[in-house]
């Protein structure tokens, strides 16, 4: 399999090769992997990629999913325009 042709994170263009290389270089928890590769940080916030990375990591380490940490979910969970936060004043 040409792992460079397998897309894990669409938003940030992270490939399966990138994920495997990072894990084999010694990065073995979800949060550090995310910081290194930036998957899950795009507009969709990891809806496709996080479960895929969890699987690859578990397989590479011979562990169960959930044993290598978890990505923290933060707002905005889906893409929304930032301008809505800028408008001043609050109405009832």
């Amino acid at each position, binding site marked *: 399999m040409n792992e460079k042709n397998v897309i894990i994170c669409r938003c940030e263009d992270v490939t*399966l090769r990138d994920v495997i290389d990072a894990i084999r270089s010694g990065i073995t928890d979800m949060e550090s992997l995310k910081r290194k590769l930036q998957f899950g940080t795009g507009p969709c916030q990891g809806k*496709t990629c996080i479960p895929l990375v969890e699987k690859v990591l578990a397989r590479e380490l011979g562990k169960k999913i959930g044993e290598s940490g978890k990505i923290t979910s933060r707002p905005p969970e889906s893409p929304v*325009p930032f*301008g*809505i936060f800028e408008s001043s004043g*609050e109405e009832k």
Partner: protein
Amino acid sequence: MREISKHPVLSFERGKRIKFLFEGSPVTAYQGETVAMALYRNGIDVFSESPKLHRPRGMFCAIGKCSSCMMRVNGVPNVRTCILPVREGMTVERQKGLGEKPSKAVKYPPPVIREEKVAIVGSGPAGLSAAITLAENGVAPLIIEQNPRLGGQLIKQTHKFFGSERENAGKRGIDIASEMIESVKKAGVEFYLNSTAFGFYEGKTLGVFAENKLLKIRSKYFIFATGAAEKMIPFEGNDLPGVFGAGAAQTMMNVYGIKPGENVLMVGAGNVGLIVSYQMLQAGINVKAVIEAAPKIGGYFVHAAKIRRFGVPIYTSTTIKKAIGERRVEKAVIVSLNKKFEEIPGTEKALDVDTICLATGLIPSVSLLAQSGVRMKYVSALGGYVPLRNKYLRTSLPNVYVAGDITGIEEASTAILEGEIAAYSILSDMGKDVEKELSDAISELSELRSGPFGAKIVFGMKEVQYE
């Protein structure tokens, strides 16, 4: 070109024709469809170019979850076109990479705060049944739905439901959806469509992008009925336009009357893969093969028999190796697997297909819950991380309830019951006398799960249910 002309079950009521601009040229659409559907109907597969590798991308999930369909609309980047209704004269452009900032400053109206008794996120079978139950008992909830229609995935289920003792058995999902939507409207339940819940703060406030502004919903109780998202699997070319979730293909066909392709490879022979394959045949689409990585078919025998009657081969112990194509799928390479799920060299076979559908499972959509610290556990039998809850469907936050696929991947009939249970639990907590209704719904649900196909769910539930 991609319109379904004849269908044995559905008749498509298409809205009046309108025009919008795509890359500067006019495109004809039907009022009531989404931008992505209008483009796809007109033969446009590529919606964007990926940021670093410059790969062509199109839609994948078609229900606003995966964000693969994002484009630049009226000068604003990162708009999910699969859930955005078309408007006369709008301008739509392919997005390059992460998108450039809006061409001119957009001014949004000030935020609005709403105080509610019960807010329901999602209007699929679980959300609707919760809303109906609450309304019938004198509590008016507010529904938030990110798609342009109520009904969640029920609005595309053209097959008849099983379950001999259930009152809905023998009915088609689409008809159950119509009835539920009518009940919700009749009861005067308020709902926001095209509205994205993006943040859940301290279990008290829901941030929503609705009617072009920020809506802060402060509610005493919340019911999360956010459903699930389709799973992607790793294979070469897995992001090529023409690779769709099976559910996306179903949305295209059964909601919008659009053919996802002419020649299809279905990946996964669980119930979703089998049912969607059959629905493709009904829509006049050629299903070249159904493949399944496991050594046997996962779905019901009757569904498999139906597509075999059409001469569609089902290959078990087989997976997809590669999607090939320049701007869209032109071929798929499949490969046999041994008992350890390893590829057997030399067994590769190329299929002439323009579409690859993935029916490889669903993942509960729990991330909003996680933002408020609701306790979760990874349970493979339930599809992924799911919230811990008691039998009343209350999570680790006492005012936050869950119902439907967010609790674990099941089906519409169980989602409807879970919606009722969550609603009765809240009513009971409010001091209403609904103990009998609540316990009846709980026993009905466990009865529904008592069959062989419920065993996996019951097993998974033990991991996350507390007293």
